[in-house]
């Protein structure tokens, strides 16, 4: 117990790094997700293929392999970033594939009659998407995006084995200097829960606020 109370600042700095990692990767993931989802529904076949290849490759590889490839493999070709930036790029790229799929299935979940009605009113492709389909798609997408954000918070722990000093790495560090795994890891788990549990509650709240009655 003391090992936790004496080292609250260590947990705090770990949690802060975890939060920074999460925020930056999620922004990147949203950007990648929008681009890839657009590519996947575009009329140009090579773009669709490229989008599909990206999603399938990234989703079927363990994020840990991607991280190690990026951190230990790419420097062999002269591409080298700081550990933190590497973690942001890989986690953002990984989550981006899932965001793309969530956005795409959000569009598919809008009943076909909505687009048909918009088209028969004479709205163009852009206007159909902008005024009719996307506003409805965003609402369907909020719960999956919330789940992805919560998963991302937890996935930032993967940055620990490559040496980013986030929450999991800090716990490991403490445990080597002052072995007391039970208390140290319980405290780390509690710190993660402080982030993930409210996140789930907020997602549910937003979901209820913007829900469309169909």
């Amino acid at each position, binding site marked *: 117990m003391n090992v936790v109370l004496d080292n609250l600042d260590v947990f705090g700095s770990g949690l802060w790094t975890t939060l920074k990692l999460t925020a930056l990767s999620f922004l990147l993931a949203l950007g990648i997700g929008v681009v890839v989802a657009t590519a996947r529904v575009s*009329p*140009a*076949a*090579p*773009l669709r293929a*490229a989008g599909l290849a990206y999603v*399938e490759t990234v*989703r*079927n590889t*363990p994020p*840990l*392999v*991607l991280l*190690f*490839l990026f951190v*230990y*493999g790419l420097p*062999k*070709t*002269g*591409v080298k970033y700081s550990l933190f930036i590497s973690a942001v790029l890989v986690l953002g790229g990984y989550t981006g594939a*899932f965001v793309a*799929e*969530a956005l795409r*299935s*959000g*569009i598919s*979940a809008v*009943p*076909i*009659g909505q*687009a*048909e009605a918009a*088209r028969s009113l004479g709205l163009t*492709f852009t206007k*159909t998407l902008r005024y009719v*389909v996307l506003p409805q798609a965003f609402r369907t997408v909020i*719960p*999956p995006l919330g*789940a*992805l954000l*919560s998963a991302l918070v*937890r*996935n*930032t*722990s*993967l940055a*620990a084995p490559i040496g980013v000093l986030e929450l*999991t790495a800090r*716990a490991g560090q403490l445990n080597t200097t002052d072995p007391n*795994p*039970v208390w140290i*890891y319980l405290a780390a*788990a509690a710190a*993660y*829960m402080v982030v*993930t*549990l409210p996140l*789930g509650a907020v997602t549910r709240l937003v979901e209820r606020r913007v829900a469309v009655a*169909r």
Partner: protein
Amino acid sequence: MSATVLYDEPGPRARVWIAVGTVVGLGLVGLLIAVAVVRLSSHHQLDRAHWTFVTDPTILRFLAFGLLNTLKVAAVAGALSLTIGCLLAVCRLAPAAVLRVAAATYTHFWLSIPVLLLIYFIGLGLPTMGLDLPVFWFLVLGLTLYNSAVFAEIFRTGVVSLHSGQREAAAALGLGFWQTMRLVLLPQAIRRMVPSLVSQYVVLLKDSSLGFVLPYPELFRRGQTTGQYAQSVLQAYVVVAVVYIAVNASLSYLARRLEARQRRPGARVPAEASIALNPLVVGANLSTPAA
């Protein structure tokens, strides 16, 4: 909704634009590949010497047993998680409040902490508490605790998404809660959730790579060792990634085949179920009725 509703059949001008987009898209992809190849070869990463380990029978055997270990852990943890997840889902819908609260607490707890943290805790903490198992079982334990919670959410979502008439009809026939679950609701829910279950199984298989911290000699760990031994770090990770992609993509392919075979007239999966294809989407509310 098929994307074709979004725009008219392309006319001559639109076709030109699509052609331009196609050329630009191909050019971009080609450019990326060219840059990668130039970069790799200028740093001698495409040299034969860096790839010969792929033909070394000893190394191949070493990696093959790594893959076998990965599959073994995924099979055992998968079977356990599915069973426990199914039980948890039933408990969460049970009439007894104690069961509901207990199952919900279990699920929410494991879903809110990272699996890696859990595996570190198991590997470092349990032996100090006098529980010393082979690392295989440590990894199975870690993966099962987390994935049983995810599977529970998937099963529950499946049951909740069924039409209420199913439950009402079962009640009208005089079936009790457990009978309704076992004979009426679960069989339909499982069939409906096959895509999500398989996606989550792929996640479980990928998460088995976390066993490298224990260390459990699975594919990723062995790839790491191979890379250091053969002095081909980049190449070893690429090979490992390709193997993971091959295994997971064939799993997903099998699942699609299975789903197509099971889809019979009158047993249509609602559009919302496609959201559930996303393995990370747990607790997504799929209960909104199909429009």
